[in-house]
């Protein structure tokens, strides 16, 4: 009998143009190359310098998200983009896509959004594909059973010119999540707990496959949240085997196969899940039933505790002490009831429709506490329209939150949506690094439900108190 293979192994093997040897990495074929304005300009420059074209422009797809404005008047109203360098980057992408024949969803395109939201949304991301982008959260697309990972700008140039990458084969890590998540505990809490358990370097050199009942029970939005933060555990990629949930999600999406091609694709996709008995290099087991809403207290996503927990003590660890000083916290302190200044719901981690529904469910009929600035930024224009059709925008606005156009926004603040120095921001994004949301900003990562609960009370709150 053939050796049982993992999902990763199957996708990898299907894309080996040249297998790796002791001396040379594999040449791996890329099915989908997503690009955006920040990490592509220097790669286009290399093409120009060397007189090269894109090998497969049709497998390349561009959007703008990182430095784009979220204020309606700057997107649609003819007001200029307030940051000049950002405007230049946007125009450079338009120019490059036109010159090199790449399909671009421009600033006013109704399909535009954060690159990792629109790939799956348009049906471009599919099971078994290799997907790359000059962005570390490309791991998100692994939720559909693709092998998807972030690359640097030099590699963006490699894919442009050859549709291939030189890659060493990563190791595999199975994260088995048993049981069911309790009420009020979401995919975000699960992935934060996993990172807390294996550490920010715990997945380095590995592709994670998330498995088990709790993963199967997640909808696609939740699966994307989990895979999105694989990189925060240092993993190269995160993957989830495609199943009926995946197929239902993809059916009928504009760029998904249609008709007979759909049936043929389904046939292939059903072969992808890891074979029984397939071996992983490492395995980790997590009990979903014991998890609680989580929140970070430090300056990397591994510094995380249950919302109701207390900050640990780590004597003789100057790095830990420095992180707490930055955050204005002390060892042994409880997070609960700590005042909150800003609440951000959005990003490629939690900017999808289910995330907005979760936040809105808690805000319905309630108000954002006085003095708290709450910003809700849908992950794509499609998510925005969907939310508006359901009346979620009214709920946010009536509660006193801001409702914006899509983009990365306050996740990294490149477009000027920043957390003021020293303020505490409960954020549904993925990184709480020093200065990530603005110089001196103090980020507390949490789920959309927890973020909404904190907005209502103006203090760190376990959302289960308000359910």
């Amino acid at each position, binding site marked *: 009998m053939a050796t049982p293979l993992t999902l990763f192994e199957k996708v990898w093997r299907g894309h080996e143009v040249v297998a790796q040897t002791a001396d040379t990495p594999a040449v791996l*074929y890329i099915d989908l190359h997503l690009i955006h304005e920040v990490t592509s300009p220097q790669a286009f420059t290399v093409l120009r310098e060397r007189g090269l074209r894109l090998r497969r422009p049709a497998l390349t797809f561009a959007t703008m998200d990182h430095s784009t404005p979220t204020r309606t008047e700057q997107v649609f109203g003819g007001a200029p983009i307030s940051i000049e360098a950002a405007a230049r980057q946007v125009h450079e992408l338009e120019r490059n896509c036109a010159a090199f024949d790449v399909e671009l969803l421009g600033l006013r395109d109704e399909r535009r959004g954060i690159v990792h939201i629109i790939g799956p949304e348009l049906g471009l991301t599919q099971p078994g594909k290799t997907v790359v982008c000059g962005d570390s959260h490309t791991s998100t697309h692994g939720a559909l059973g693709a092998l998807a990972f972030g690359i640097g700008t030099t590699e963006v140039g490699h894919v442009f010119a*050859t549709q291939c990458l030189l890659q060493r084969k990563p190791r595999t890590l199975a994260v088995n999540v048993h049981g069911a998540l309790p009420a009020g505990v979401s995919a975000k809490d699960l992935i934060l707990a996993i990172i807390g358990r294996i550490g920010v370097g715990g997945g380095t050199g590995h592709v994670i496959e998330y498995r088990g009942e709790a993963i199967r029970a997640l909808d696609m939005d939740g699966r994307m949240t989990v895979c999105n933060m694989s990189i925060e555990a240092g993993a190269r990629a995160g993957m989830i085997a495609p199943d009926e949930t995946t197929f239902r999600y993809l059916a009928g999406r504009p760029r998904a196969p249609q008709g007979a091609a759909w049936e043929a694709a389904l046939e292939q996709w059903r072969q992808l899940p890891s074979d029984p008995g397939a071996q992983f290099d490492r395995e980790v087991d997590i009990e979903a039933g014991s998890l609680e809403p989580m929140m970070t207290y430090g300056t990397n996503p591994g510094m995380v505790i249950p919302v109701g927990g207390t900050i640990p003590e780590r004597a003789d660890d100057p790095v830990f002490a420095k992180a707490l000083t930055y955050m204005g916290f002390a060892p042994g302190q409880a997070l609960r009831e700590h005042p909150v200044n800003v609440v951000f719901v959005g990003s490629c981690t939690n900017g999808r429709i289910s995330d907005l529904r979760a936040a809105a469910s808690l805000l319905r009929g309630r108000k954002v506490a006085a003095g708290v600035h709450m910003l809700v930024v849908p992950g794509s224009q499609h998510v925005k329209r969907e939310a508006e059709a359901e009346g979620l925008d009214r709920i946010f606005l009536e509660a006193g939150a801001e409702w914006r156009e899509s983009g990365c926004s306050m996740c990294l603040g490149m477009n000027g949506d920043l957390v003021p120095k020293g303020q505490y921001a409960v954020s549904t994004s993925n990184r709480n690094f020093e200065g990530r949301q603005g110089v001196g900003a103090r980020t507390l990562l949490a789920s959309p439900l927890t973020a909404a609960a904190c907005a209502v009370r103006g203090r760190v709150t376990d959302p289960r108190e308000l359910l």
Partner: protein
Amino acid sequence: MEPIRTLRSRTVVLTASDIDTDQIIPARFLTTTTREGLGKHLFADWRYGPDGAPRADFVLNQPQAHGCSILVAGANFGCGSSREHAPWALTDFGLRAVISTQFADIFRNNALKNGLLPVVVDADTHRWLLEHPGEPLSIDLELSSLTLPNGTTVRFPLEPFARYCLLNGVDELGFLLGREAEIAAYEARRGLA
């Protein structure tokens, strides 16, 4: 790319562990469309005060850091974003090697493509290096070894292909373009031609 064989320099030490790419170069400097000139933004939020003036207490601003091409950093360096601006900023500042206990995958890839050597050492060597800033080291790429001032030599892992490219100044894009026949055959097999 210039070939590298050996590297000799005093070290500059940043003890913080898990230094992420947002520290190496904050997002607000990513609106550039070129690769050059990012060295001035390296570690910007640690290096400059709120008024933009260099902080005298930050090691990269001190006279002994001048001319150092080897950075010793705390455990696990380069996590976070895929921004190649991080190695661009480090090399533009004049650094050619970073020593730590582990590197984030994307950062390591990006560094190697820009002639910046990620050197992984064991915990004991790492501790010694953190405690002895400014000591002269020499790195031999051919042997993948690092020699401490007392003559002790430690080997570090370096992927053979990356080593070959660094030693010979080989450009990976050229290597990939040379695989045209295999790529075309693969596309034909998949019906992509």
